[in-house]
C-alpha cells in the first residue's frame, strides 16, 4: 500500500495536466473529430510536462522555494508582474471552468440543472481548501481520479481494431474531411491542456507545503515518472473511446454527457456511474489545484507567508486571495457562460502563455547558486531547449490560429 500512496501527489497533478474539465472535453472532441491522429500531441505534452515538472521538483527540494517565488527574482519586478497577471487570470479562468465542470458532473448524476449546482460545488471546494489537511486532500482526490480507468476498460470492451488505431496515430495528418488549420488548432489546444502551467505551479508549491528536502527528490521523481504518465494514458483512453464509438457514428462532442457515451454503450449503467464519479473527482481535484495555484502565484510574487498547512491567520493575504478567486470564479460561472466554451478558450490562452512559466523554471534549474551540482544535465538541457523553441512556436501560433479557424469550427 505504501508504494501506492507514494505517488498520489503525482496522480493529483496528473489530473490537472491530463484529466481536468478542459482535458476531458478536449480529448473527447479530438477523438470524435480526428480519431487518433492527434495522439502524438499527448506524448509530446507528457514528455514536456515530466521534463519541466522534474526541473521544478529539483529546484523545490533543493531550495525549499516554489516556482513563482523565483520568477520575480529572475525576471525582475516588471516582467514578473506581467507574468503574474497573465498566469493568474488564466488560472482563474481555468478554475472557473473546473467549478462549472463539477456542476456539470453533478447535473449528469442528478438531472438537476448545473447552475443550481455551482454554489454547492463552490462551497464543497471551499470546505476542502479551508479544512482538509494537504496530504489527505492529495490522497482522496488522487485516488478518486483513478475512477476514470473506466474509460480504459470501456475501450478494451469496445474491442477496436488496435492496428487501425495505431495506424491513425502514426499518420500525422488530419482525416480526409477535416482541414489542416483546424487540426493544428486542436493540436495546440491539446498541447496547452497537457502542459497547463497551473499543474507545475501546484506541484512545486506542494513540495514546499510538504517540506521537501533533497532526500525527497526520489519520491518526487516517482510521482512525476509514474503519476503523470498514468494520467496521460487515461486521457488517451478517453480519446480512443471517442475515436472508436463516436467518430463512426458522426457524433461530435459538445457536452460532458457525450464524453461518457462510449462508456454507456460498452459498460452500461455501472460504467456510467463510475465515469461520473471520475468526472466529479477529476474536476474537483483540478479545482483544488487551480484554486491553490492562483493563491500560490500571487503570494509568492509578493513574498507573503503562504501555505495551506499554515494556520489561516498566519497567512491572511494568501487565504484572502484564494477566497477572492473562489468568489470571482463562482460569479463568473453563475453568469451562465457555457463552462465548456470557457474551458476551450482557457486551453488556448494557456497555450499562448506557456513560455512565461517554463522559461524561468529552465533558467533557475541551470543556476548553480541555487542548485549546486543538481543543475540540469546536458541531456535535460538539450531536450529542454528543444521544448522551449516548441513552446514559443505554440505560443505565437495559438491566438492567430484561434482567430483563423474561428476557434476550431
Amino acid at each position: 500500500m505504501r508504494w501506492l500512496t507514494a505517488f498520489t501527489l503525482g496522480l493529483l497533478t496528473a489530473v490537472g495536466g491530463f484529466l481536468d474539465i478542459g482535458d476531458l472535453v478536449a480529448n473527447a472532441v479530438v477523438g470524435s473529430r480526428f480519431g487518433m491522429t492527434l495522439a502524438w500531441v499527448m506524448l509530446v505534452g507528457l514528455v514536456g510536462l515530466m521534463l519541466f515538472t522534474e526541473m521544478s521538483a529539483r529546484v523545490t527540494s533543493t531550495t525549499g522555494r516554489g516556482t513563482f517565488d523565483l520568477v520575480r527574482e529572475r525576471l525582475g519586478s516588471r516582467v514578473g508582474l506581467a507574468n503574474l497577471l497573465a498566469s493568474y487570470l488564466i488560472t482563474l479562468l481555468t478554475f472557473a471552468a473546473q467549478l462549472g465542470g463539477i456542476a456539470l458532473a453533478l447535473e449528469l448524476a442528478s438531472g438537476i440543472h448545473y447552475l443550481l449546482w455551482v454554489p454547492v460545488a463552490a462551497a464543497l471546494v471551499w470546505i476542502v481548501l479551508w479544512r482538509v489537511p494537504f496530504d489527505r486532500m492529495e490522497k482522496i482526490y488522487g485516488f478518486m481520479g483513478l475512477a476514470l480507468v473506466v474509460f480504459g476498460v470501456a475501450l478494451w470492451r469496445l474491442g477496436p481494431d488496435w492496428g487501425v488505431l495505431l495506424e491513425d496515430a502514426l499518420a500525422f495528418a488530419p482525416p480526409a474531411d477535416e482541414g489542416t488549420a483546424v487540426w493544428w488548432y486542436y493540436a495546440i489546444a491539446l498541447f496547452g491542456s497537457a502542459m497547463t502551467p497551473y499543474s507545475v505551479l501546484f506541484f512545486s508549491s506542494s513540495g514546499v507545503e510538504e517540506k521537501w528536502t533533497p532526500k525527497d527528490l526520489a519520491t518526487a521523481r516517482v510521482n512525476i515518472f509514474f503519476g503523470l504518465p498514468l494520467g496521460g494514458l487515461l486521457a488517451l483512453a478517453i480519446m480512443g473511446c471517442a475515436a472508436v464509438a463516436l467518430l463512426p457514428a458522426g457524433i461530435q462532442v459538445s457536452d460532458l454527457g457525450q464524453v461518457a457515451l462510449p462508456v454507456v454503450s460498452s459498460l452500461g449503467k455501472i460504467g456510467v456511474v463510475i465515469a461520473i464519479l471520475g468526472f466529479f473527482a477529476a474536476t474537483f481535484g483540478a479545482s483544488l489545484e487551480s484554486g491553490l495555484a492562483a493563491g500560490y502565484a500571487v503570494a509568492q510574487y509578493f513574498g507573503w507567508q503562504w501555505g495551506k498547512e499554515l494556520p489561516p491567520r498566519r497567512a491572511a493575504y494568501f487565504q484572502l486571495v484564494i477566497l477572492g478567486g473562489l468568489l470571482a470564479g463562482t460569479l463568473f460561472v453563475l453568469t451562465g457562460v457555457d463552462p465548456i466554451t470557457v474551458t476551450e478558450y482557457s486551453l488556448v490562452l494557456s497555450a499562448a502563455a506557456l513560455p512565461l512559466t517554463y522559461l524561468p523554471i529552465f533558467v533557475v534549474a541551470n543556476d548553480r547558486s541555487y542548485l549546486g551540482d543538481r543543475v540540469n544535465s546536458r541531456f535535460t538541457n538539450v531536450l529542454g531547449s528543444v521544448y522551449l523553441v516548441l513552446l514559443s512556436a505554440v505560443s505565437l501560433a495559438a491566438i492567430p490560429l484561434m482567430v483563423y479557424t474561428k476557434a476550431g469550427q
Partner: protein
Amino acid sequence: MSDRGDGSVFRIGFTVLDRQIVDADGDNVGKVDDVEFEWREGEPPTMTALVSDTAALGPRIAGRLGRSWEVLLGRLRPSDEEPTLIRSEDVERFAPSTVLSIPAPSGMRPMETWVAEHIICRIPGGRR
C-alpha cells in the same frame, strides 16, 4: 560592500532587489521591493536599508501604472505609519534568499494584520 573577497562584483540589482526576505525563524517577511542609500559628502554611497513595501514597487514599475500603483497601495497603509525598513546590518546573507539575523519587524503589513483579525479569524475554523 562593492567587491567581495573572491573578486566577484556585488550587484544590487541582481543580488538584492526582488529577493525573498526570510526572517531568523524562517518565516517569509516579504520581497526586497526597493533599497535605501545614504550619500555623505566625499564618500561613495552605501546601501543602508532594504524596503519591503508593495507600494514602493510603484516607481520601479514606472509610467502611469507605476504611479497609480504607488498612490493606491500607499493609501492602504495607515497615514501615521511609515513603511518598515530593514537595516543592512540585520541581513545575514543576501543570496539565494535574503536571510535576516532578527525576527520579522512587527507591523510590516498593517493591512494583513487587519485582514487576519477581521476577516480570516471570523470565519469558522479560522483561529486554528
